């Protein structure tokens, strides 16, 4: 192309706008969707396929769905879409398990307080953070007192009655909250110069990573009593939480170790040179950087842990998946597995998607690179 551009004296060239159609919405469409004839055809085809899918999905999920009915046959008479009655009739079980109706306000309050307790930890810019952190520290005890009861006139509730999303949250949140600090300690232990600490950390990590979680849960449900002093008989739920915590702490430790090893040697030299002690270096230099690098891996492990809580079904705890299976076993609702499992999937998806988004937000917030 011999388009003659205007000539300027050296050093006098002004900043010109880019040629039309290479920037803005039109530029984006051109380069991303319609960059060539075949790509344009593919774009149009994809849009059509998406339309077919979404149209069908909306009909099945929402427009043709039945939201209340007495059993499956009457459901099918009322509409061609999904039969959500299997869920709506048991929604309280999906949330609370078999927690007594009259006491469910305790679960609700605990759940709402969880947000208040988590806020200062997840979102450091929050107002009154100092005071809220005290609340975060108290929260585990408050939650225990409220949910389990047995104090202050609160009726004692057997943990066998815990179930549904509440059980998932209890196991998931407790294990996540405990496994991060434990994982950090194990990661530091594995990097330690103290040989014994190092060996112990390595053994713990390798053992926990080397066995399937399900075997640990069986150990928790049956064998732990043999290893503990006779007479100690603590709760199955507590044992499950301990095993879950240990299991994910081992993974977290390895993720964080990767982060620690990614820190350039110069950082430690600089910290040494200004006179920081090992613990000061760990607190101000190593961990902030290692944890930042490890965020995707840590959240990945947490999401995995959260979903692995469904394995407790096998040792007889009724999490949402267990409740769903119980619902399907009911002759009235026999065969509605699609609806049931989709709903269980949704319960987990909400939490896991939230974790995933939070980690992206955190990564962006902590990024100090020149962009």
């Amino acid at each position: 192309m011999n388009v003659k551009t205007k000539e300027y004296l050296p050093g006098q060239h002004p900043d010109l706008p880019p040629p039309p159609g290479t920037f803005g919405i039109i530029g984006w469409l051109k380069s991303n969707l319609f960059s060539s004839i075949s790509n344009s055809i593919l774009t149009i085809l994809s849009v059509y396929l998406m339309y077919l899918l979404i149209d069908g999905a909306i009909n099945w999920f929402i427009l043709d769905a039945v939201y209340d009915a007495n059993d499956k046959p009457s459901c099918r008479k009322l509409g061609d879409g999904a039969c959500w009655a299997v869920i709506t009739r048991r929604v309280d079980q999906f949330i609370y398990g078999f927690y007594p109706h009259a006491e469910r306000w305790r679960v609700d309050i605990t759940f709402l307080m969880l947000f208040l307790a988590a806020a200062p930890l997840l979102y450091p810019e929050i107002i009154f953070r100092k005071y809220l952190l005290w609340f975060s520290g108290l929260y585990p005890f408050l939650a225990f007192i409220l949910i389990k009861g047995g104090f202050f006139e609160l009726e004692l509730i057997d943990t066998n009655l815990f179930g549904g999303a509440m059980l998932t949250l209890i196991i998931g949140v407790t294990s996540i909250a405990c496994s991060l600090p434990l994982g950090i300690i194990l990661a530091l232990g594995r990097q330690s110069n103290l040989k014994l600490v190092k060996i112990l950390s390595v053994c713990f990590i390798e053992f926990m990573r080397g066995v399937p979680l399900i075997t640990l849960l069986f150990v928790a449900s049956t064998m732990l009593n043999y290893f503990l002093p006779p007479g100690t008989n603590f709760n199955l739920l507590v044992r499950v939480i301990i095993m879950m915590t240990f299991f994910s702490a081992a993974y977290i430790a390895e993720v964080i170790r990767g982060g620690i090893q990614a820190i350039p040697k110069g950082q430690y030299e600089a910290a040494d040179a200004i006179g920081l002690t090992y613990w000061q270096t760990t607190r101000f230099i190593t961990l902030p950087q290692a944890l930042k690098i490890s965020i995707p891996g840590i959240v990945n492990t947490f999401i995995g842990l959260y979903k692995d809580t469904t394995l407790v079904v096998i040792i007889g705890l009724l999490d949402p998946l267990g409740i769903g299976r119980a619902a399907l076993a009911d002759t009235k609702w026999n065969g509605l597995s699609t609806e049931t499992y989709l709903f269980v999937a949704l319960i987990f998806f909400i939490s896991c998607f939230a974790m995933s988004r939070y980690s992206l937000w955190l990564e962006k917030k902590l990024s100090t690179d020149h962009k």
Partner: protein
Amino acid sequence: MVKKKQEKVIKINEMHKWFGTFHVLKNINLEVSQGERIVICGPSGSGKSTLIRCINRLEAHQKGDIFVNGIELSGDLKNLEAIRSDVGMVFQSFNLFPHLTVLENCTLAPIWVRKMPKKDADTLAMEYLTRVKIPEQAEKFPGQLSGGQQQRVAIARALCMKPQIMLFDEPTSALDPEMIKEVLDTMIELANTGMTMLVVTHEMGFANKVADRVIFMDEGEIIEQNTPKLFFTKPKNKRTKLFLSQILNH
């Protein structure tokens, strides 16, 4: 602290160091007076960086002794951190903490090692950031600064500990030519305040202008040392002559 002008702040006697079986420093003898400015030069791999890294024990020596401010550096030293905080160090690759702002980089050690209140540490850091001429960058992160600016922050960070000795490990080697000058100017200003300085560098102009003594090292030994004037005009050793001809004639 009142010190006599000629007091020796660093004494190194017959010091040897090995990396594994590789004999990297051989029989080093060096005394540095209070306020003295020393430039150490030599070909790469000659042990000059290792030598100054031994002075704040980033590297441990295996034989001989090193005294810094009258305290011997050895393996069973209880308060190594205390000695290190009196010896400032500036690295070739800056080694700023990327997750902390410029100001936080400077105040971290004063607050946690010197136990200074945060407000005082902030004031102190701003004072030194002003001295290295970048007070306006205090709230930025290191990754947002140019190399020269980062190195000046690193100098300010070291100075915030009010060290008695400053070690510079090739402070300008990772910089673009334009930025070398701003860092050297900062170092010259520091030299004019009477700071004891040991500088590993290939900037012979700086050596000529600032140094009280130039030390030439090769293969782990101190080959020759002299005032810059004599060192550059009348080098005695063959290897020194060769080195000088290589770096000056191009």
